[in-house]
C-alpha cells in the first residue's frame, strides 16, 4: 500500500481545477466536431452537453469513492477491493490505458504538426522530441512541476478562445435547425464519440493523495469539467454553423480549418501560430499521463518512479513507432476513446459500489 505523500510534495486544491481541465483539453478538441457530427448531425452540441453532465456525475462519484475509505488512489483501491492478483491485473489495465492515451496524444499531435507544417519531417523525430520533453520535465520535476505546467499553459493558451469566434463571420445559423432531430441512438453514439475529447478527469484517481485540502478537491474538479464542457460545446456549435454538413463530414481537424479564416494584419495564417501553441495544450496531458503511468509502475512493480519514467517513455515511443498511416492512427485513437469510455465513463460507478460493499463487509465482519 502506498503512503500519502508528505506536505512538501502536495499542491493546493485550486490547482485541481487546472489539472483536471488541462488533462481533459488536448488533442481531441481539435477534431472532435467531425466525429460527433457524423453520429448526431446538427445535434452534436447537445451530445457534448449530455456527456458533460454525465462527467459531472462521475466526478462526484470519483470523489465519493476516494473519500469513503482510507485508500485514496485507484491503485490501492483496486488491491483493497479485488485482492492481490485481480487487483494487480486491474492496475495493469489502468496503466495500459494511460500508456495508450499518452501514445495517442503523441501520435496525434505529431501527425497534425507534420501535415500542416513540416511535411518532410519524419514521424519518429517528432515523437522523439515529445518523449524527450516529457522525460526531461518529469525527471527533474515530479508532480509539483506537472501542476505548475498545467497552471501556466492554461493561461498561455486560453486566449485562443477569443479567436475562435472569428469564423462566425461566415456562420449560417440555420445549420443548427431542426433541433433534436437525432434519435436517442444517434445521440448515444454521439456521446460515446465525445469520450476521447472529454477524457482526462480520471487522473483525479491518482492526483487525489497529492492535494492538501481534500474537502475542496471536488468543487475545483467540477469547475474544471464545467469549463471543458463549455469550450467543447462552443467549438462544436461554431463548427456546425461554419461548415456545411457534408463538408464537416470530411474535415479532419475542424478547429484548425476554422482557424484558416482568422487573419491579422501581422500574421496571415493564424493556424501556424495555433499548431506550435497546441504543444502547450497537450504538454500537461503528456506529463500527467506519463506521471500517472510511473505511479502505476510503482504500484505494480515497486520500481522507483524515476526508473519507471524511462521504461514507460521507451515503451510508448516504441508503440508509437508501430504506426505510420493516418488511417491506423485514427483507428488507434478511436480505440483509446472506446477503452477510455468504459474505464472512465462507466467503471467509476461500479468501483464505487464495490468499495462501499467491501467497506461494509469489513465493518460488519469486525
Amino acid at each position: 500500500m502506498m503512503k500519502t505523500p508528505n506536505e512538501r510534495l502536495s499542491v493546493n486544491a485550486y490547482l485541481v481545477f487546472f489539472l483536471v481541465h488541462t488533462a481533459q483539453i488536448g488533442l481531441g478538441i481539435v477534431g472532435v466536431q467531425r466525429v460527433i457530427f457524423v453520429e448526431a448531425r446538427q445535434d452534436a452540441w447537445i451530445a457534448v452537453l449530455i456527456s458533460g453532465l454525465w462527467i459531472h456525475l462521475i466526478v462526484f462519484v470519483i470523489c465519493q469513492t476516494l473519500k469513503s475509505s482510507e485508500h485514496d488512489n485507484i491503485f490501492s483501491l483496486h488491491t483493497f477491493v479485488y485482492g492481490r492478483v485481480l487487483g494487480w491485473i486491474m492496475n495493469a489495465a489502468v496503466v495500459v490505458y494511460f500508456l495508450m492515451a499518452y501514445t495517442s496524444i503523441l501520435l496525434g499531435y505529431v501527425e497534425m504538426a507534420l501535415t500542416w507544417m513540416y511535411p518532410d519531417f519524419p514521424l519518429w523525430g517528432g515523437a522523439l522530441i515529445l518523449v524527450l520533453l516529457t522525460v526531461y520535465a518529469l525527471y527533474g520535476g515530479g508532480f509539483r512541476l506537472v501542476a505548475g505546467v498545467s497552471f501556466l499553459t492554461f493561461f498561455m493558451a486560453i486566449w485562443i478562445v477569443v479567436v475562435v469566434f472569428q469564423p462566425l463571420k461566415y456562420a449560417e445559423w440555420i445549420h443548427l435547425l431542426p433541433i433534436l432531430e437525432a434519435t436517442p441512438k444517434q445521440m448515444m453514439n454521439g456521446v460515446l464519440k465525445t469520450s476521447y475529447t472529454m477524457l482526462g478527469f480520471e487522473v483525479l484517481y491518482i492526483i487525489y493523495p497529492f492535494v492538501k485540502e481534500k474537502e475542496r478537491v471536488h468543487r475545483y474538479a467540477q469547475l474544471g469539467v464545467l469549463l471543458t464542457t463549455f469550450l467543447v460545446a462552443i467549438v462544436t456549435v461554431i463548427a456546425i454553423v461554419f461548415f456545411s454538413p457534408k463538408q464537416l463530414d470530411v474535415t479532419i481537424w475542424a478547429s484548425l480549418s476554422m482557424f484558416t479564416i482568422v487573419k491579422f494584419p501581422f500574421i496571415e495564417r493564424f493556424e501556424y501560430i495555433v499548431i506550435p501553441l497546441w504543444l502547450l495544450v497537450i504538454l500537461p496531458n503528456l506529463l500527467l499521463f506519463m506521471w500517472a503511468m510511473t505511479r502505476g509502475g510503482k504500484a505494480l512493480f515497486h520500481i522507483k518512479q524515476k526508473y519507471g519514467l524511462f521504461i514507460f517513455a521507451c515503451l510508448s515511443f516504441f508503440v508509437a513507432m508501430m504506426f505510420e498511416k493516418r488511417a491506423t492512427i485514427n483507428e488507434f485513437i478511436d480505440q483509446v476513446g472506446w477503452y477510455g469510455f468504459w474505464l472512465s465513463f462507466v467503471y467509476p460507478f461500479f468501483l464505487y459500489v464495490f468499495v462501499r460493499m467491501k467497506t461494509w463487509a469489513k465493518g460488519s465482519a469486525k
Partner: protein
Amino acid sequence: MKWFIVVMLLLSGCVSPRVLERQGIITATGFDKKGKMYEGGSVMLSFKKMGSSMSEVIEATNKTSKGFRQDLEAQTSHDLGSGQIRVVVYGKELAEKDGIFGLTDTLQRDANIGSLVYLAVGEPSAKQVIKSKKHEDTPDIGTYLYRLIEKNLRSESLLAATLHEFIHSYYDVGKDAVLPCLSVRDDKPIIEKVALFRGDKFVGTVRLDESFYIKMLSSEYNTGLKNMTVSREDVAPLLIKKKGKKVNIVINEIKTKRKIKLISQKPTPHFRVTVNMQTEILEISDKTKPIMKDNVHILERAIEKQMKKEIDQLLVKLKRYETDPIGFGQIYDHSVRKLQLTDKQWLQLYKDARIDVDVNVSILRTGTID
C-alpha cells in the same frame, strides 16, 4: 539541460530552409480546358537581392493539376511556392463543362493554402485574364485581381468569392455557389457579372445589380449603393414636372435584414420572404417637392414596388438556370424534420416553388436637402 539544448539545436536543422531569393511565389493561377487536357498559367513573383520584385506568367498543359504544377517547375529556376496564392481563375468553358470541384479539391487538401483564397470564373478564358498586362500600381496581376475582388466584396457588390464559401455551398444541399466573373476589357480584368453555379458547374451569369438582390435575400446587407429606375406615375405626387421619362433614384447606406419562412410544403414549397431595408437617398434624377414626413412614403412604396418587380424577375431567371444561390433549399431542408433532402429532389421542388417577396423600405435621411 546542456544535452537538451544540444538536441534542440541539432533537430532544428532538420527542416529544409527556404531562401526568399530562390522562391518563385505563385500569386494567381488560371485553368482552362483544352481538349481533354488542362491548360493553365501561373503568375510567379520573384524577388531580387536588390531592388524590386518581378513577375512573370508561366504556362503549361497537362492532364492533372498536379502534373501541371510539375510542368511549371520545369520552366523556372525558382522553387515554386503555393502558400501565397491569392486568386485562382477558372476558364468559363472549363467551369461549364467539367466543373471545378476536382480542381478546388487540391487547394483544400494542401495545408499551405488558406481557405480565404479567392476563386473566380474567367471570361472568355482564364488565360486571357491571367495574361492581361494592365494591373494598375500593383506588382503583378495576381495581387491586382486579389485587390479587385477584395474591394468589391467589401463594398458588397459581390457576395462570395472565397474557397471556403464555394466549398461550403457546394457541399450544402439546397444552396448553390456563386463566384465573381472576371471579364477582360481593354486588356484589363474587371468584374461586371457574377457567375452562378449548380453544383460545381457554371450555369450562367447575372449582372452586378441583380446580384445585389441575391445578396440581399441570402444574407444581410450592410453598406452599399443601389441605383434604381422607378416609373413616373409611382412617384408623381412628389414631382414638380408631371411629364417626362422614368425617374432614377440612387439609394445609399443600405441596411437590410431578411427573413425567409417556409409557409407550406404541399403541394409545392411556398416561401415568404420579408426584407426590411433602411436606406438614405443619395440622388433623384428629377426635381422634386421637399420630401417630408407625410410624403416620404410615396417614395418608399415606389422603391418597394420596383424592387419586388426586379426580385421576381431575378427569381424567374434563377429558376431557369436551375440554380439556387439564395438557399431556399437549405431553408426547406432545415425547416422540415426527418428529411434528408438531396440536390436532385430539391431541383424538382424548386422549379415549382412559390416565393412571395415582401420588401419594406424606410428612408431614414434624404441627404443634406429635403
